[in-house]
């Protein structure tokens, strides 16, 4: 019989901020309680297995209306890779014009997520 561990998380999917408790026996998730919607359950499981976040930042633009363009990852990326992604984005420079949704970095650090523009430049 493996050790039973309980983790208390605050769900960050929506403003409600439900407290979700995940029970693990060894590597196995044996219980999820306290969520009030399916997204909360999925979040808690994901957060235990591999926490992920959307990354957002700004990158440099040449010849635009503003010196920067706002960007984000088009899907959540592993939390531990975020510092490396930020470092990568600090080196990126794009040419204006940039439109919203334009891919700035494809498949960033092999995560499968694209970095896309969220503001015009």
């Amino acid at each position, binding site marked *: 019989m493996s050790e039973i561990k309980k983790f208390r998380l*605050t*769900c*960050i*999917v*929506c*403003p409600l*901020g439900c407290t979700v408790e995940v029970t693990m026996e060894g590597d196995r998730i044996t219980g999820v309680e306290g969520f009030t919607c399916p997204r909360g359950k999925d979040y808690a499981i994901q957060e235990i297995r591999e926490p992920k*976040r*959307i*990354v*957002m*930042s*700004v990158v*440099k633009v040449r010849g635009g*209306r*503003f*010196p*920067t363009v*706002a*960007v*984000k990852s088009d899907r959540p990326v592993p*939390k531990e890779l*975020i510092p490396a992604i*930020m470092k990568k984005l*600090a080196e990126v420079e794009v040419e204006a014009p940039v439109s*919203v949704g334009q891919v700035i970095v494809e498949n960033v650090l092999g995560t499968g997520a694209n970095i896309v523009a*969220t*503001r*015009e430049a």
Partner: protein
Amino acid sequence: MRSEYDVIVIGGGPAGLAAAIKAKELGLNVLLIENREFLGGIPLQCVHPGFGIHYFKEDLTGTEFIHRIIERFRALDVEYYTNAHVLEVVPYSYRHKILRIVTEEGLFEVAARTVVYAAGARERHMFEIGITGHRVAGIYTAGEAQTMMDIYGVMPGKEIVIVGSGDVGLIMARRFTLEGAKVKAVIELMPYPGGLTRNVVQCLEDFGIPLYLSHAVTRVEGKKRVERVIVTKVDEKLRPIPGTEESIECDTVVLAAGLVPYLKVIEKAGVEIDPATRGPVVNSYLETSVPGIFVAGNALVINDLVDYVVEQGEEAAMGAYEFVKNGGLPALKWRKLVKGRNIRLAVPHYLADTKDVTIYARVGEPEENVRLRFPEIGKEIRLPFVRPSEMIRVKLKKEEIARAKDRITMEVVRDE
């Protein structure tokens, strides 16, 4: 520029853009005045998500949200000026206001049948929150720091202390950290965080940033630039406790100590102010005490969500439309919205049974398992919790409003 408009919208952020779009769609002739060099207002510098969950049913960044609104605005070909200021709104008569507007082309006097005032809010500065000390470089409001970093790409500092743990302070803590600065602490006066729990988790706990509850920054020290702040514990009455001072080394102080509706122009026109919201007193058409002047967004009340700001913009435009169409508003009998137990603020202040109304309110104290009650109209809503940081938004139907004689109380009651 024409010499007369049905509606002049002051402010090109989400509230003003939404108002201009709605007014134009309703067939009014519209002029919008924005004082910055670009349309969009504050969301243009909000690169984080959390925008549009209600309005677009999607989680967008501030930049994406406002882009969609600007696209709609552009498609309607609304007349607008950027780099333009409204100096004065003169309530010339019941049906006409005269606006003095400065643009790059000069000074204009323009008449408007109605005005939608949507100039947003200003940030509270250090002297309003009791910070003393040296007036050195490196002290910014959150909005200034955000403009520098996320529009102009310049970091405001390397080692930062943030004053205030509302959502703005929390989100800025994450932005600074991601961009390589060290956030030494977030200082909160109250015994609980000002922002949403999920923001405490994903903005502070994710990065191990310390949150000092029941603490105040009492002093800023430095020669040319900030070198340290003095942080002091506060008692239940929020007074600093002598002997508990602690010094935190930093080069930058960012003030995220709340917003105040920015009313300069319409205050001079004589609108009545609610001391609780610090915004104008309005009726359910979002008309102020000066007939024909409507208000929306953070100039009306400080909102949590841009979705509500846009909704208020549209509401104010519909109010302006009724005013233009009827030469005044159709409602004759107003019921006062009275703040009952644990309601700190609520707008609109006066309700009529001529239309359904959305009420935006905040509580004074956090509570769990409560009911929101309107005793005069027999309406009750069960709420799992109420928190000062989360605006309550509730709709009243005109038939419900009609049940009340002259007042409608709104109160939070505990479950027995």
